[in-house]
């Protein structure tokens, strides 16, 4: 009975990932081999990092549309700095400078978002949608639309390398997820994040500064987008203004399937990571099965809907208890 209770208390997303993974291992030809699993893991890294960043902004009841555009901008700017065809000729210094600039770009636009939202009291979706357009525009102006290539070989090794079946990129992604997990669960800021998301006014009255909290969430989301840019650039070995073009649905999907409330105040980073893995696995498995793209979107939508409703039913049950 006790074990049953324990099993029941596990969040739905873990069940989904486990069932889907096992079903895929058994039923999908070509899925149950190490090379395929390694590819699957490296495909999910960018989504995990972006979802972790946006997760923070959703926790306080907002959203960050800028992240996918920042992903593209950082890859073209960082890529052009470290490119062997660039002015620095792909030297070690160029590599370091490129990485630094990518994170700083994320940080910078995170600050702009956070500042605009908290100072002018504008809804986050308006602010981040506007900065998304600005960032997209900047990326196109910067490159003229062309993609950036010629990554230095050390960076290429980083992008393609792995320990057993775990790509280096996944280690970065898990690292980001762990840091975000610690920030949300073990720090004062984390507790304030949930408090502001649950009840803005109550948080204010009890001495929490919603302004500071919200500001920090957007800055962290920006930094995540910068890191995601690095991982994307390493994975693709080229920068393009087109990156992330259809990714936002997957980001929100990961967060929602993970059981995070879009209204704020509830949700776990670990579940969002699982959500990202699930979405990525659905994509990959259906591709391997040769299901047409339009069906994949449809099936993904259905699964997100089912997973989110199951989570809601469970939450209601818990609340009723």
């Amino acid at each position, binding site marked *: 009975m006790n074990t049953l209770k324990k099993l029941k208390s596990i969040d739905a997303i873990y069940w989904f990932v486990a069932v889907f993974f096992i079903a895929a291992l058994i039923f999908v030809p070509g899925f149950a081999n190490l090379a395929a699993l390694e590819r699957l893991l490296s495909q999910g890294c960018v989504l995990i990092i972006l979802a972790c960043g946006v997760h923070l902004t959703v926790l306080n009841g907002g959203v960050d549309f800028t992240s996918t555009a920042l992903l593209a901008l950082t890859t073209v700017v960082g890529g052009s700095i470290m490119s062997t065809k660039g002015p620095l000729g792909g030297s070690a210094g160029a590599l370091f400078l490129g990485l630094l600039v990518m994170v700083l770009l994320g940080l910078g636009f995170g600050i702009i978002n956070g500042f605009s939202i908290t100072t002018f009291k504008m809804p986050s979706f308006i602010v981040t949608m506007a900065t998304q357009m600005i960032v997209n525009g900047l990326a196109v102006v910067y490159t003229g639309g062309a993609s950036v*290539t010629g990554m230095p070989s050390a960076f290429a090794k980083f992008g393609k390398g792995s320990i057993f079946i775990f790509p280096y990129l996944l280690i970065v992604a898990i690292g980001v997820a762990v840091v975000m997990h610690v920030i949300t669960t073990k720090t004062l800021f984390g507790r304030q994040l949930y408090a502001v998301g649950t009840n803005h006014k109550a948080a204010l009255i009890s001495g929490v500064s919603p302004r500071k909290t919200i500001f920090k969430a957007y800055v962290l989301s920006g930094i995540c987008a910068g890191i995601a840019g690095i991982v994307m650039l390493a994975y693709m070995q080229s920068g393009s203004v087109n990156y992330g073009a259809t*990714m936002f649905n997957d980001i929100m999907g990961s967060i929602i399937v993970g059981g995070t409330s879009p209204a704020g105040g509830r949700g776990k980073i670990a579940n969002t990571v699982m959500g990202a893995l699930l979405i990525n696995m659905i*994509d990959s498995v259906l591709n391997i099965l*040769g299901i047409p*793209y339009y069906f994949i979107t449809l099936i993904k939508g259905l699964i997100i809907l089912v997973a989110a409703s199951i989570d809601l039913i469970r939450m209601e049950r818990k609340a009723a208890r």
Partner: protein
Amino acid sequence: MKKEMLRKAFGIAMASVMAISMVGCGGGGSSSSAAPASEPKSSAAPEASSAPEEPSSAASEASSAVESAVSAASEAGAEASDITIGVSWCAIESQMWAEYQNTIKAECESLGVTYTESVAENDVQKQNQQIEDFISQGVDAIIIAPADGEAVVSAIQECNEANIPVIMANRAAGEGCEVYATISSDNKAMVKREIEYIVSITPEGTKYRCLELVGSLTDVNAIARQEGFEETIAEYPDMFELVSTVPTEWKGDQALAGVQNTFSADDTVNFIFSPSDALLPSIISGLQQLDKYAKVGEDGHITLVTFDGAADAVDAIREGYVDVVSVQDATNQAKLCVQAAVDAAAGKEAQDYTDAGFEVSSQNIESEYADFTGY
């Protein structure tokens, strides 16, 4: 009561996940004859079925070449029926791609080659993932119609590592990877030919003030067409003057806005170069709104030069509104793709798979290309 509901809901969810995986398995086996939902442009299908009986003898040559390739393949021990080809589409966003898709499917079906596809909706990262998934799937050859030739390089490198031959459809790949063959047209040469056709029929002393639309800057073909146009008109400085260059990212709304803006700024423009028939409907509706859509030879006619050979463009030429279109023979290119893929899977040497293309103009549409309906 609630407990019961919860259990049911969970059960249904589990079942649906399993069911989806099951359906998936079924789909995997039968995906050779693509599922119905993968034919977004079903209206193009009837045209497509008539298209192979085109005047272009190249097409029939190609198909006989395919047959010989297949017989060679079976001699070499690799039965065509054992071959699985994965096709990674950038997006099926124009009639040309729809024709490409239909022809490759039909060609695979007639050869008994298993066809499997993915569509990336022009998202380059998604396309890379889908190509990687083809590797996992263990296909024998991959045909890639890339959204971005440069960004697809890392996925092709992985195909190289996995020893799966790659055939580029219509757009070339960037440097740093090996492809078995690139099936495309010489876009620059084709644009040059159609501009020279215009020069040949234009009375001396005529002055063209040109609006040039540009496709996507990440598309090598768009750039080749832009270069072809600009270089050719530069050879005739007395005849052509470039008034405005409008980037469209292959989007109709941007082409429409470009036409409207250009004419509001300069009413004397009398020549439009469209790098793809996909933009033509927008250009035509822009001209209609401005009351400038006149037939060839009529007063106020805007010379329209376009590219691809879609049914819309061919109809417009037949009706007398468009002057000339450079036709990439999508039917032929698609057949060449399958031929190359079968060659590659059989371990044969790659041949030259260039599609020469042809021009259809208001002069030859009733004679040489009387049966041509476009894609």
